[in-house]
């Protein structure tokens, strides 16, 4: 009769969706929100760590990254500044810009959360996050292509480099979610 007007709980089912169907809609929204923010912050942390840590390429005696070229020779451990290239500086700039844009996107998300009208999209937040992911991608691509110029070919790519590549799809997905998401409450 008036069952269609009821917005409360449905009868419990035996699969995973029963966990979420017990929650009220506002709780679901909160969970979704939390999930999105966690994803965003995870991408941001990955970007940050990848930019700073000295492990973009590693060899048996040396490791290098965007800022330093460190090696252990018979004279001891010494580091050279990675300033002898136009491309490495471009990679540095792109990584820093991606971090900045991701921060701006997080800030805009919280702004838009409280000021957006009902039914509106987090368009601006999504745009900034997608831009951040594009910057990471272009930085990683440039590094991949140009790295034989400043590190010997025998060295393998390190974990900070892999982190940058993982941060790219995370940031992209996070940005797309923002663009699709509509504010409901």
């Amino acid at each position, binding site marked *: 009769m008036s069952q269609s007007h009821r917005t409360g709980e449905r009868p419990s089912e035996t699969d995973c969706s029963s966990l979420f169907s017990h929650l009220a809609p506002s709780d679901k929204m909160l969970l979704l929100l939390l999930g999105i923010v966690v994803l965003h912050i995870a991408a941001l942390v990955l970007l940050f760590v990848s930019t700073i840590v000295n492990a973009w390429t590693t060899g048996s005696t040396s490791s290098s990254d965007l800022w330093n070229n460190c090696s252990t020779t018979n004279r001891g451990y010494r580091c050279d500044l990675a300033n002898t290239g136009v491309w490495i500086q471009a990679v540095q700039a*792109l990584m820093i810009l991606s971090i900045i844009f991701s921060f701006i996107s997080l800030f805009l998300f919280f702004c838009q959360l409280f000021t957006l009208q009902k039914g509106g999209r987090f368009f601006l937040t999504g745009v900034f996050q997608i831009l951040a992911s594009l910057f990471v991608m272009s930085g990683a691509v440039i590094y991949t292509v140009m790295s034989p110029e400043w590190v010997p070919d025998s060295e393998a790519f390190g974990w900070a480099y892999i982190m940058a590549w993982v941060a790219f799809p995370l940031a992209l997905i996070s940005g797309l979610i923002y663009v699709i998401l509509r504010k409901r409450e």
Partner: protein
Amino acid sequence: MLTILALASVILLGIVPQQSEAIVIYTGWERHALVGSDIRLSCSFFSWRWTSDDVTFSWSYRADGARDSIFVFHYTGGSPYVDNKGPFRDRLEFVGNPGRRDGSILLKNLDYGDNGTFTCDAKNPPDIVGRASSVRLLVFEKVPIQAGVITGAIIGVVLGLLVLVVVIYYLMRFLVARRVFNLSVSKHGKKGKGKEGSQQRQVPVLSIGDPSKLKAAASEKKKQESRKDKK
């Protein structure tokens, strides 16, 4: 109280000249140069004493990878003595001004073998205690771009573009809203009945802009209608 202050000041005045007897020598940290070019290596010093007539400057050079250094320049008794036997013979020139505490030398026609460390030592009698200062010379085929210049440039340009876009957006919004507001005000000023149709068309345009302007126009419209009702 006063005696303690006087005693303290006398002690301080006694201590400070002792520490300031040391001469402080300034050279650069690192110098980059192209092959075949000339470079000026500057050396100056700070001393609490007046510049004496017996001031001396000497430069020594240690090549990259070598163990000991050789002297290549000495200024004493008012005359400079440049290298005439060593690696810099006929290439070194004194361009300093000892009266102004400047002991700089000019190296001409640089080569890759000139990579190394140059040490300047200056003495200003009786101020002779001090530490010599070294400058490292690096000779390149082409001078590399300084670390961080391009990085800073790219970041600056992108952020600048962002700020520009935001400013232009807000400016456009402000201008459009103001123009529409001015238009609607001029239309409301004329009490013609035929203007009602065009007024109806004004309101949807305003709803895109500021909501406050929308309220103002709506209240104007209500006043106009109430006036017409009274007639």
